[in-house]
């Protein structure tokens, strides 16, 4: 008993000591010190890097290289715990005057709606970068080609696709390598065959993580084909109605038909194990982004295939494409103290040399226009090379065109309701209209 108390007292004294000792530390005076938020796992930090000491991470070494090239500059890496919340944290930090010099946020509306707290970089971007990188539209205010530049598109060029199990598809009498479904009709026929073979055609969790993945990664491509990003942006701004958008309604009706035909797993609005089920060989197709390729190939080996979405409208201007593009951006706060050095760092991280360096640890398609697949050493027949080939023909993320508060707040939580029939396509579109801020 008394020993317990002694121990407790000792620990408490230690706690107080540490609390006060910690308060007095002053940051060392440097000529320029940049604090940089880089999110874990989805941008410059790969899923296999966090097992290593921080000094060995690609991004930490990139910062060291930047420090060496720019004497007098030091860069501090901060990994925020939750990227959704870090958008709000960024606002608050700017408001209080202690924001990082560079923050890693999402592209599109997530930064447009923050334009009051972001410093534009139009005058600071090297002209060569404007040519050397795809995806500037994702960081130009309102996707306007002449809009203010709010930051750099960064990190991965995530390309959406349908991952499929070659063995299951083969058993159903199909070959997606030789003859991938090109139209919606082909796609329906293929799904029917897979269903007849006794396997679930499409495994997906449409509500478990707050994002309807199939809708955002596959069906949105059809929406973009039918309606076009430009008009979706107008609808998001309330200039046109979602309810009048024939393309949206057609896309949603088809999405619903996939469910009623039994091509989706029946419990897609409550399930949370589709990736596991896919890896266990219990279904043919699973919508994905490149981040998942490595783990899937480790488990299913050569059975992993890559399928791009079929064309909904063969006469559309957008064809042979898919949803994708830079989903991550680098921006700086409007009260940042070192804008020039900060932009220099953004440019540095997006340089060809750095991209090739990062590919030594992480594999993903790039936003650089001047990198060839040969340079990367990707085997031409590999899944990643197939995705690399379409890296420049992507259609930018439709869900990043929707603002929050606004239509995004309907799209994300209620998308799955359309599939299961709790909401009609028209009701869904009307809800999106209602949510547009006045």
């Amino acid at each position, binding site marked *: 008993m008394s020993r317990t108390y002694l121990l407790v007292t000792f620990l408490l004294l230690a706690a107080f000591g540490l609390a006060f000792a910690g308060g007095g530390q002053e940051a060392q005076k440097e000529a320029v010190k940049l604090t940089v938020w880089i999110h874990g796992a989805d941008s410059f930090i790969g899923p296999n890097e966090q097992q290593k000491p921080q000094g060995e991470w690609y991004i930490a070494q990139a910062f060291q290289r930047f420090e060496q090239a720019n004497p007098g500059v030091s860069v501090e890496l901060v990994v925020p715990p939750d990227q959704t919340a870090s958008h709000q944290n960024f606002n608050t930090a700017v408001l209080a005057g202690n924001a990082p010099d560079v923050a890693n*946020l999402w592209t599109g509306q997530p930064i447009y709606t923050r334009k*009051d707290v972001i410093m534009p970089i139009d005058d600071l971007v090297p002209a060569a970068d404007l040519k050397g990188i795809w995806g500037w539209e994702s960081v130009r205010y309102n996707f306007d080609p002449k809009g203010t530049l709010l930051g750099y598109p960064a990190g991965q060029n995530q390309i959406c696709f349908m991952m499929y199990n070659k063995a299951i598809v083969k058993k159903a009498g199909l070959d997606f390598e030789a003859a991938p479904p090109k139209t919606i009709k082909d796609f329906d026929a293929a799904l029917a065959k897979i269903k007849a073979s006794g396997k679930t055609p499409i495994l997906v969790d449409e*509500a478990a993580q*707050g994002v309807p993945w199939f809708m955002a990664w596959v069906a949105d491509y059809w929406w973009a084909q039918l309606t076009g990003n430009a008009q979706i942006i107008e609808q998001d701004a309330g200039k046109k109605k979602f309810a009048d958008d024939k393309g949206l309604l057609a896309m949603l009706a088809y999405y619903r038909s996939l469910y009623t035909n039994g091509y989706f797993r029946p*419990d897609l*609005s*409550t399930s949370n*194990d589709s990736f596991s089920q896919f890896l266990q060989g219990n279904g043919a197709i699973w919508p994905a982004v490149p981040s998942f390729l490595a783990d899937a190939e480790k488990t299913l080996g050569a059975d992993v295939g890559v399928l791009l979405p079929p064309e909904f409208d063969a006469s559309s201007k957008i064809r042979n494409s898919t949803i994708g593009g830079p989903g991550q951006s680098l921006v700086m706060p409007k009260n940042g103290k070192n804008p020039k050095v900060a932009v220099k760092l953004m440019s540095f991280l997006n340089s060809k040399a750095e991209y090739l360096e990062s590919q030594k640890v992480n594999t993903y398609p790039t936003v650089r226009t001047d990198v060839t697949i040969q340079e990367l050493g990707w085997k031409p027949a590999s899944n990643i090379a197939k995705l690399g080939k379409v890296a420049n023909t992507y259609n930018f993320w439709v869900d990043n065109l929707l603002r929050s508060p606004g239509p995004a707040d309907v799209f994300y*939580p209620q998308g799955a309701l359309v599939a299961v029939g709790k909401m009609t396509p028209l009701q869904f579109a009307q809800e999106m209209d209602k949510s547009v801020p006045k």
Partner: protein
Amino acid sequence: MKKRRIVLQIVFSLLPVLLVLAVFRVYPIAVAVIKSFTNWDGLYRSDFIGLRNYVSFIQSGLFWMVLRNTLILLANVPLQVFAGLVVALLLYEKVKGWRVYRAVIYIPQIISAVIIGFLFKIFFGFNGPFNAVLRAVGLGRLAIEWFGNSYTALGVVIFAVVWFSIGWQAIVILGGMSAIPTSVFEAAVLDGASYWQRAFKIVVPMLVRVLEFCIIASGVWTLTQLFPFLYAMTRGGPGFETSTLDYMVYLKSFGLGFGSDYGMATAIAVLLLLLVLAFTLIEMRVANRADDWS
């Protein structure tokens, strides 16, 4: 002279608490209440818009669903107090293996809600173990998509919350029981009082104050802290069918994705506050103890 000393004792005992609360709770709450009449976006925009946040939330139809869900979830309070009481009595009477139970009972409180939520979601999944058992014993008709509609989903959430809280309730009640002289129990056992008689004729009357604390604390917890559970288990869905007031506060402030409507979030928080005040008043009435404090 003595009176002055007592006054000083009262003042200096309460002062630190009042100071801390005034600066770190009341001030931010006051800011929030004021912001509930504005269109604050968490940044610079903050125009006075009167009751518009309240009116539009109440008119949205979402309000009634969310309010209903909040009230349904309150049903977990009597259940968790009851379950905690039963377990506390068993521990008190040292059933076989009580040391093991006592050691494990608090584990759920220590585990991240994300993991608890994930496991419950799998367990009650359409193809999960629970439905597998139902199908195996020939009750396949009952094997439904438990999270697929608001009532059964809320039922599962209540079950999960009770499971999570048994340990908390049990140790609070055990703490209260430590003040009851054991002779009272011994006499009751000698008189041949059954387990339920001992529970309701002896323990409950002597623990009125502790049980009152259990009810208020878990009630407030249900109303204001349920967010992590709902987030992990249902994401407030399908749609908004399992969202509660405090869940909406989170969605509107920290966002479904990346945006925030702080004005609205604070208005919902004020509505929640009004609801809790009503809840507390009722509780005090029911316990008929309001006069105790006059």
